[in-house]
């Protein structure tokens, strides 16, 4: 199929096609195939999301009678009700606090732990590293029932109950990504710093942290997304007052409480989605790099 379309190709952007052809990469017609598949993929991905956002502008009756067309009439009431109330903002704040605290601690403790594991040599170094890597085998789902009891016994509740275990569960992948990165920094850095009389701790703060910034951003972004989307722990820990919940749990709770008002749920879900989408658009490169790095490393 790709080859049969070759003759149509010069009709489109002659210069571009020429350079492609000179490189002899592939039959040019398959560019149309690529664009076709891209359009289908975009429609399948964005379609449901747009439908959700538009649904928030509908009246309940409009959704029932005309679910496919554009909202008619457009009503701002759903979004206005949510944004003028305090519940959404509380949950947004909770999610932000938890994600920021988790990310900061994961990056700090993870880098601290990865530093000696990468650049000191001492007895038991590999053992400690192996202990951390086994963490990849222990998903939260396996540990969640005893973890719930442990947190109850330690009287860790509320948002801290999310932050602390999330740090612990995000550490293995953080250390696994950071260790080779830190190990690859040239040895001469330490030699020079130590000659200037800087201690190891001083070296960590003044040299290593600034140099490790790119890798720290990558692991930080992964930790942030993990925390932002977390559902299982909040489900167990944040029972009770909805204004103490994080956004994912808030969405399901809202859905349970307003089951008749579908357009209201659509508005709430859309609003809950927007911060994540904005963050994703800003950090897209970092996220992809982080994931491909995590997979390859």
């Amino acid at each position: 199929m790709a080859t049969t379309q070759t003759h149509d190709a010069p009709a489109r952007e002659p210069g571009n096609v020429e350079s492609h052809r000179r490189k002899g990469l592939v039959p040019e017609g398959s560019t149309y195939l690529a664009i076709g598949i891209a359009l289908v993929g975009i429609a399948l991905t964005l379609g449901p999301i747009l439908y959700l956002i538009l649904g928030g502008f509908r009246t309940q009756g409009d959704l029932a009678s005309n679910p496919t067309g554009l909202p008619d009439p457009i009503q701002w009431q759903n979004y206005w009700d949510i944004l003028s109330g305090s519940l959404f903002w509380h949950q947004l704040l909770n999610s932000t606090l938890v994600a920021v605290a988790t990310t900061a601690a994961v990056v700090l403790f993870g880098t601290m732990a990865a530093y000696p594991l990468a650049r000191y040599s001492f007895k038991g170094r590999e053992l400690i590293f192996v202990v951390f890597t086994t963490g990849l085998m222990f998903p939260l789902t396996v540990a969640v029932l005893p973890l719930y009891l442990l947190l109850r016994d330690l009287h860790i509740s509320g948002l801290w109950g999310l932050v602390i275990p999330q740090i612990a569960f995000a550490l293995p992948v953080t250390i696994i990504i950071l260790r080779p990165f830190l190990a690859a920094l040239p040895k001469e850095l330490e030699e020079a710093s130590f000659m200037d009389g800087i201690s190891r701790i001083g070296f960590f703060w003044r040299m290593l942290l600034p140099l490790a910034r790119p890798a720290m951003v990558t692991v930080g972004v992964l930790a942030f997304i993990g925390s932002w989307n977390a559902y299982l722990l909040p489900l167990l820990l944040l029972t009770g007052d909805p204004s103490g919940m994080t956004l994912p749990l808030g969405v399901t709770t809202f859905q349970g409480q307003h089951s008749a008002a579908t357009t209201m749920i659509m508005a709430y879900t859309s609003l809950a989605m927007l911060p994540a989408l904005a963050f994703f658009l800003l950090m897209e490169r970092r996220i992809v790099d982080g994931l491909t790095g995590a997979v390859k490393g």
Partner: protein
Amino acid sequence: MTALEASGRNADPVVEQSTAGSRPPTPATDHPRRANVRKWAEIALFVGPALALFLTFVVYPVISAARYSMYKWNGVSQFSDAEFIGFENYARALFGGTSPDTKQAFTTAYTQPFWEALSHNFAIIFLSLAIQLPLALIVALTLNRKFRGRAFTRVVIFAPYVLSEVIAGTMWLIIFDPNGVATQWMRAIGLDMPAGGWFEDPTWGFWTVFFIITWKYVGLAIILFLAGLSGVSEDLQEAASIDGASWWQIQWRINIPLIGPTIRIWAFLSIIGSIQLFDMVWVLNRGGTAGQYSTIASYMMEIGFFRSDWGYGSAIAVIMFFLSFVIALAYMATILRRDNAHPGKAR
């Protein structure tokens, strides 16, 4: 250890170490033994917080799960009062328990839902490899060229992976509502929704959920494959093209084999993720009103937490851990081994 000697017992100031070949650099100190103590204190300071958090909140709960799984316990009463029943919880899940009197009842109450949930996990593993993998490959291979809007396409296709399961799940719950847009579209083309509803139908409920899972996760596969393809040398493709290879031949003979390691790692992540699948299934009505798309994780939460059978729930958790562990080891030993044997090619 030479490194220890280098940093500890060696009395020479480290300033001179630039001549000392393989010894790691060490800060200048006045006293060797003090330096050694100081070094271990530093290691403890750096590794300590992470290790303490990890051992307390990851390792300890996992070990506790193994312990609880030997007891009959509701999670509310004192654990010291719980009744020790050995491997009975496992026996109930796997084959209806060891007592002939209760075997019938336990098989219905425990064994059947367990195996049903497990079969869903394996169905999802199989379908991911049979449907998501070819789909992602075709999309990645066709998108692997320059065209206007390529960057935008990548971003959009990857977006669902970053959305939370809750938001994606809630969105699809509304779309697949019995009176929702999906039903109306089906009616518009003269069909109807599955007889019992998109999610409730005993047969089609699972497929609806698998569709949603694919929507949510296939973007990761596409992005990983595209990243792998960007590392394939254009010279090779060019040479093949000049030799008269068709587009498909280039894909089959060059691109797909060369991103083999990426595909195998993705398959690994997908298999492990399928065994531990929870959030999405839970958001979609807790695994279905009759458990028609339950997974072991959703089954564990349902029975362990919400029906307070903590011992049994812990046994399910341990089985889930054991499964992913064995599958991970087997996969690494057989399939990933050859990739790691040639690290240079593992790109």
